[in-house]
């Protein structure tokens, strides 16, 4: 071996820091504690197929499922909730997003207040909104559509205002330098560059809303979930399974269309 290559001693293996150990230990203990608290039970996995309850899921009563009043009317109501709340939420989000972007809103107070409200709205899970509105304005699709509108608004504002933030500021500058007022300057300078993203986000929110509107009925906010909730109380899991197969078939098709539209836009 050539001695010129032996320039240095072998280093000592560095010991992991005590803090990392401590963090790992705390996480481990927390995980165990949490597992006990949720009554973690692996035997569910191997006992799952021998559970007699599965026989309640089978056979699926297709002649009950394929009826207008049991499946298709509630399903259409679900779609209507999703469409209406997407349209309302996204339309209102358009001006709000521009008001919330630091690029287009020089006013710090407006910016701060709207951002805080939107963060608070998003901190409440969507079905909590639904339950609140059901209590406030009565059971049915009306409450469901309102709650999803609020939620769409919050999510859309979050996504879109960040896109506006990142938009190229130069066209806006050009429009301002030609003496345009604030609103027309934003309309001609920023709007065209961010509009495709706006449409794409709207479609994405539509997909979210479709999924959410399926389960709204579980808390009384209309749509196909109402049927699931009723059948659940009668322990008719065979009917529920049939319904779910139909629902997710249709949801899947709609999503595929929406996804392919989105891809074409971008």
């Amino acid at each position, binding site marked *: 071996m050539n001695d010129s290559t032996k320039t240095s001693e072998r280093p000592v293996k560095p010991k992991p820091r005590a803090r990392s150990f401590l963090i790992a230990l705390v996480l481990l203990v927390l995980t165990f504690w*949490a597992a006990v608290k949720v009554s973690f039970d692996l035997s569910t996995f191997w006992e799952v197929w021998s559970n007699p309850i599965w026989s309640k899921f089978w056979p699926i009563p297709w002649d009950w499922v394929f009826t207008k009043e049991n499946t298709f009317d509630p399903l259409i109501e679900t779609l*209507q909730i999703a469409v209406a709340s997407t*349209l309302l939420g996204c339309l209102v989000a358009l001006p709000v997003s521009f008001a919330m972007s630091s690029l287009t809103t020089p006013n710090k107070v407006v910016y701060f207040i709207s951002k805080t409200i939107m963060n608070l709205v998003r901190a409440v899970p969507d*079905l909590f909104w639904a339950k609140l*509105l059901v209590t406030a304005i009565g059971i049915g699709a*009306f409450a469901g559509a309102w709650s999803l509108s609020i939620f769409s608004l919050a999510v859309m504002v979050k996504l879109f205002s960040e896109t506006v933030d990142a938009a190229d500021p130069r066209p806006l500058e050009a429009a301002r330098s030609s003496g345009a007022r604030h609103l027309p300057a934003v309309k001609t300078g920023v709007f065209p560059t961010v509009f495709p993203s706006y449409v794409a986000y709207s479609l994405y929110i539509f997909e979210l809303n479709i999924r959410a509107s399926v389960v709204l009925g579980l808390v009384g906010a209309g749509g196909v979930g109402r049927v699931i909730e009723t059948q659940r109380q009668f322990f008719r899991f065979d009917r529920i399974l049939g319904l*779910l197969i139909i629902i997710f078939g249709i949801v899947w098709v709609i999503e595929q269309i929406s996804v392919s539209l989105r891809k074409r836009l*971008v």
Partner: protein
Amino acid sequence: METLSDTPIPSQRPPTPKTFHRWFIALPFLVAIIWSVAGLDITLSRLLDAPGDAWLIIKQMIPPAFGEVYERGAVGKIFESVYIAWIGTIIGAFASLPLAFLAAHNVAPLWIRSPIRQLFNAIRAVPELILAVILIPVTGLGAWAGTLAIGIHSIGTLGKWACESIEDIDEGPIEATEACGGKWVSGMRWGVLPQVMPVISSYWLFRFEINVRASAVLGMIGAGGVGSELVSQLSFRNFPAASAVLIMTMAVVLTIDTISAAVRRRIIKGAETTDEESRTLQAITDLTGIRS
């Protein structure tokens, strides 16, 4: 102006493009609005009464009855939601990681990756709440049903995200392990895993944030956690207590969001040199598949 019109290009002004196609886009929108609103049994009186009704309840919600819900054990219920989300995320993470390796097109053959991708898509299509509806009769009411529902649903999203980050790697180290005579497993363990682990673990944390919200909702149908508390207070029309539950939930959700986001930033820091803003956009791109 003289000089301009003297230019030797005798071009004609093009005709204004016809814009009738705008109506083709607007028309379905109008139809959609009318059709969807018609189905929501909106009457004028309901529309007019709704804000008043909502205001009436908001008024009753103040001040929130924190003391009352504390005595009923609402804090424990909120923590139960967090536990459900934590264990559910761990189940999802452990189950999805090996599957993601089998689903990535640069490291797995077609015959295995296409069924696994379909599995991810199928799982993602079913919301946690629906999974819980199916699981509750099997496991009984309680936190374990919610944990399983969240765990199963997380496999879908976590698997998809992990798979995409595996597909984005530098494939040089895999070639190096192959050239050393290593097997497929070694290539994954030493060539791929160190590259993707920071991104994937930050996805786990992000999923945990989402799961905290999801587990709060699951309680509403009896799958454990704070949701049941909100439902019962609202059905008793005990609005001060309901608003206390709501505010406590929001506080916990926002705290966890903030801590988790800070940890995620630390994990990713050093890996990417992009500034804060473009990283947010990157996250949106990752989540939605939309490039802006």
